[in-house]
């Protein structure tokens, strides 16, 4: 018993050690490492910028060093735990402020000295928060929270802020000129086209009014109630007017929104039908859903667009050779729409599969005993229960469509779309105009994201990686089963033909003209193609690890701990998921091109872009899997004297290993296929496979593009299968309870 009393009394000195350690690390970093870096080279430092050398000349550095020393001595000072926590918080905050001020005023790129000092002071703030009782957690968690918040602030919020700022703050002054010029440009939005005699906006409003009238009449005929008639009339009138104005309008806003609406509806409808089929069909085709739903995830951008050109163009294999048509109708919104529906239906499918799976069969049986037939059940039980999930799927596919860059670039038919205009504005007409387009697209997607976040909430993504539950399958009505299976088989056929055509393109001399077998395109990948492929795989693999760690950690923090700003942290982390890549890309260019945070032109910025873009995937997987672990497991570990890092390592990690693995895989794959953000960031040494494919396509060397695309697809499929098998092998020890991919 004497021993235990000792440990109680000894609790305080151990917390001291943490404070001392961080004080010393901060002090050493601030004093002995250089504060300034030369340009974009990460390892070339400005001479004479060691803390010791700057100490006398710059008061900010002096304050920082003083704070670090103070923090170190705080640890050994005989103080109650609480007081020490608060003092550490104060010293850390002052020190961090000093470092930030130093960075802002010095104008040099941040060197390791300043970096260590900044991280050290932030760590002290975290320790202070924990010890001071501001968060219910220990020092480790406190540090994690503060660092996570800092990273999210710097790498997600700051670039977005830079976009908004960049659209109104030009050459050092606040002006709305560029905003005004941009939104009055026909490429942005034209409601009334001055080049035509008629007024398109009036046409749209007229169409809306007519639709509203029809809606009211239909409602009146069906319900015979004044209220319903008025509501329906008004609703259809307003919605119809908006749609009508858009339909008759012109420009990127119009194209993007119309496309998102249509793609959202079609992909969600198909996804819902396929989900029903996958869960309830009695036909063997169900088994195809797994591989088919993975396919779009590992498909590099442009591949579908490329295939559509070759199959459906004026000389397309299907349109011209098989059907004898002579049309370019598939260039433009129709082609983009088809490619997007093919790409995003699996997303809707994965969401809705979870929804359909969770439908309680007992409810349907109850409805059946009450005399409902299967159609009734579908209409009155399944559909209402699935409605929130359907809304969720629609919103997510709409966001994806808005953010899509690859398809509009390849089959967009030269029409403006918001996501592509950002890039073309940035590369042709100046970053401020790009920022205006970026702000517009950001506003749109954020609105949708907010609706989705408020309405459908946190559970929505969970099902994407959730574990399958085996229930009693209720078969679909036979006619529906066959009809939907027909649609699905056609869909699979289209997929097979499209991917097959790319495969054919990679091994034939001249796709579309000369079908002689050749491997010249694969040989042609050397040296550039292969080198770029290696760089891409390497950078993606490196980025996947911090991406998973940071994402999982934030997921763990927000599920298990309560602290001020917790939901803000989660929301902001998810923000990078909802932000279109081109917006984030222009944001990174604007944010990290000068001053202390100068990172453009390095590999590091590409890795950081990958990390913070894909982190939400791991975050979601983390939240979902942590929620499945009873909190008392961690408490039991804590009670048995494990510190929170030990608990994380020994209890939580082994239980969520599968989720982490799938987070790793998806982060890696998403990085491999990323295009929209990184196209702004590629450097001499780090050209990426996706931009290389685009470059091949633009120059007409399509065979090379097809070859590189296939290399990517096959490589990613191998990686996924390999890691999956590895997980199966490792999974032997702990019985059950593992969520699968």
């Amino acid at each position, binding site marked *: *018993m004497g021993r*235990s*009393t000792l*440990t*109680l*009394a000894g*609790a305080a000195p*151990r917390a001291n050690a943490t404070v001392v350690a961080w004080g010393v690390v901060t002090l050493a970093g601030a004093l002995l490492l250089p504060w300034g870096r030369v340009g974009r080279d990460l390892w070339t430092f400005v001479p004479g910028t060691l803390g010791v050398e700057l100490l006398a000349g710059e008061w900010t550095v002096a304050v920082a060093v003083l704070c670090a020393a103070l923090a170190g001595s705080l640890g050994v000072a005989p103080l*109650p*735990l*609480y007081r020490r926590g608060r003092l550490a918080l104060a010293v850390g905050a002052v020190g961090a402020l000093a470092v930030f001020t130093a960075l802002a005023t010095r104008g040099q790129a941040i060197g390791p000295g300043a970096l260590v000092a900044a991280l050290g002071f932030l760590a002290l703030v975290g320790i202070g928060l924990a010890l001071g*009782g501001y968060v*219910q957690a*220990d020092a480790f968690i406190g540090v994690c929270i503060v660092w996570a918040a800092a990273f999210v602030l710097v790498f997600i919020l700051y670039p977005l802020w830079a976009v908004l700022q960049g659209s109104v703050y030009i050459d050092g002054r606040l002006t709305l000129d560029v905003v005004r010029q941009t939104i009055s440009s026909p490429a942005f939005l034209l409601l009334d086209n001055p080049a035509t005699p008629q007024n398109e906006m009036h046409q749209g409003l007229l169409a809306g009014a007519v639709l509203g009238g029809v809606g009211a009449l239909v409602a009146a005929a069906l319900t015979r109630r004044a209220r319903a008639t008025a509501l329906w009339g008004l609703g259809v009138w307003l919605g119809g007017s908006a749609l009508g104005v858009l339909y008759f309008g012109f420009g990127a806003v119009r194209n993007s929104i119309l496309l998102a609406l249509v793609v959202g509806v079609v992909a969600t409808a198909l996804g819902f039908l396929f989900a029903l089929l996958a869960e309830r069909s009695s036909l063997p085709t169900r088994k195809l859903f797994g591989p088919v739903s993975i396919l779009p995830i590992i498909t590099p951008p442009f591949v579908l667009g490329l295939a559509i050109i070759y199959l459906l163009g004026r000389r397309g294999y299907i349109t011209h050779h098989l059907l004898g048509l002579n049309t370019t109708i598939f260039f433009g919104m129709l082609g983009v729409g088809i490619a997007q529906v093919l790409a995003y239906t699996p997303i809707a499918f994965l969401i809705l599969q979870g929804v359909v799976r969770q439908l309680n069969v007992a409810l349907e049986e109850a409805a059946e005993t009450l005399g409902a037939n299967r159609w009734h059940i579908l209409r009155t039980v399944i559909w209402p229960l699935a409605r929130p999930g359907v809304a969720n799927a629609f919103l997510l596919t709409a966001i994806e469509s808005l953010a899509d860059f690859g398809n509009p670039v390849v089959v967009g038919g030269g029409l403006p779309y918001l996501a592509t205009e950002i890039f073309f504005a940035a590369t042709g007409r100046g970053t401020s105009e790009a920022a205006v387009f970026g702000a517009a697209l950001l506003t749109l997607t954020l609105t949708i994201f907010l609706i989705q976040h408020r309405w459908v909430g946190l559970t929505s993504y969970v099902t994407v990686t959730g574990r399958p539950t085996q229930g009693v399958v209720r078969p679909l009505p036979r006619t529906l089963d066959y009809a939907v299976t027909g649609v699905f088989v056609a869909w699979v056929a289209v997929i097979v033909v499209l991917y097959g055509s790319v495969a054919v393109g990679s091994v034939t001399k001249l796709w579309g003209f000369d079908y002689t077998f050749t491997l010249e395109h694969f040989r042609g990948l050397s040296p550039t193609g292969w080198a770029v492929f290696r760089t891409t795989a390497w950078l993606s693999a490196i980025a996947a690890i911090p991406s998973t760690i940071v994402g999982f950690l934030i997921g763990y923090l927000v599920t298990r701990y309560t602290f001020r700003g917790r939901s803000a942290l989660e929301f902001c982390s998810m923000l990078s998921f909802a932000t279109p890549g081109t917006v984030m890309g222009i944001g990174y260019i604007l944010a990290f091109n000068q001053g202390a945070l100068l990172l453009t032109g390095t590999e590091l910025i590409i890795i950081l872009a990958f990390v913070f873009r894909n982190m939400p995937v791991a975050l979601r997987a983390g939240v979902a899997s942590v929620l499945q672990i*009873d909190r*008392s*497991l961690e*408490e*039991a*570990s*804590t*009670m*048995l*004297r*494990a*510190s*929170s890092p*030990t608990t994380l390592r*020994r*209890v939580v990690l*082994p*239980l969520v290993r599968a989720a982490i693995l799938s987070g790793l895989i998806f982060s890696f794959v998403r990085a491999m296929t990323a295009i929209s953000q990184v196209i702004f960031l590629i450097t001499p040494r780090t050209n990426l496979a996706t931009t290389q494919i685009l470059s091949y396509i633009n120059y007409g060397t399509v065979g090379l593009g097809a070859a590189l695309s296939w290399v990517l697809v096959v490589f990613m499929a191998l990686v996924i299968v390999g890691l999956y098998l590895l997980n199966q092998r490792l999974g032997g*020890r*702990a*019985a*059950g*309870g593992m969520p699968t991919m």
Partner: protein
Amino acid sequence: MRGDRPVHVRLRGVTKRLGTHLAVDGVSLEVPEGDFTTLLGPSGCGKTTTLRILAGFYRPDAGDVFVRDVRVTDVPPHRRNTAMVFQEYALFPHMTVAENIGYGLRMRGVPAAEARRRIAAAVDLVGLEGQEAKFPQQLSGGQQQRVAVARALVVEPEVLLMDEPLSNLDAKLRVRVRTELRALQQQLGKTTIYVTHDQEEALSISDRIAVMNRGRIVQVGTPREIYYRPADRFVADFVGLANFVPVRVVAAGRVRMGDLEFEVPGAAPGPATLVVRPEAVALSAAPPAAAGRPTFRGRVKTVAFLGGLARYWIEALGTEWVVDVAAPGEQMYAGEVSLTLVPDRVHVLHDQGKAAGAPNGEPAAR
């Protein structure tokens, strides 16, 4: 039984707000060394929150926690020398029984040989020999529960905390395991704080019970004190069944109920409520005979045969009475019956809520 032992764990004015809900409201409690104290109350009464404050998972908004006069309010859970048995056992599914039990030893840096010895002893103690290499999922509920207990005990905690550890067992097993737990606790003399909402469990297992309601401790006492001399109507109602009859104490120790008057020692004058346990009423078919013992007539409405006893619902004195008759045998009452109170088993509650003779909620005074 307690007075001679030093106080081991003390809560002083502990208050905790969870969100907007005042979960624990100024709780003070002293647990003597080696004592088995149960926090009893309905769900949401703050008993689990109190336990978690003791464990260190929550930091109280006000008040302090002492272990042997050392203030531990700010000590994080993993630095306190307490161990806890969880409601769902919280066994690590990816570790074997032996690994689960040894986890705390490993965290304390106990050398492997000693750890092995202590694990074996703990396994022995809870009777799980031969199960060491199994995973928790391969054990029965009772066995899992024992692993949880062994895991908590093996680290030789100063204080053992248990959060409804039996609620996941079926009824029969629960009775058996709670007897075992009690025996184990007495054998080791380990100070134990136990949380349950099951009054029968609390009565059977504890040295002392602290009854909680709405974040406050309403009464602390031995199981008998709690049962027979509840501090207020809530305790009386929550612990066991009771009939509540409005009465008037006409003079010190003299109670008037309807037109009956009888002696209840310690009752102070004023309006009051008489607490009558179902078994404190004797039934007979014959009309009232013995004078001095309060007897009145009633009419049997329903009867439930429960094996060892029969429970009657009887209309009498304008209200409904619940009366238990032990060992009923074949004979059942029906129609008109006589009810006779056993005066030394009834208890008077003054209508301000203060019980006659029993000062409320001040354990320090005892």
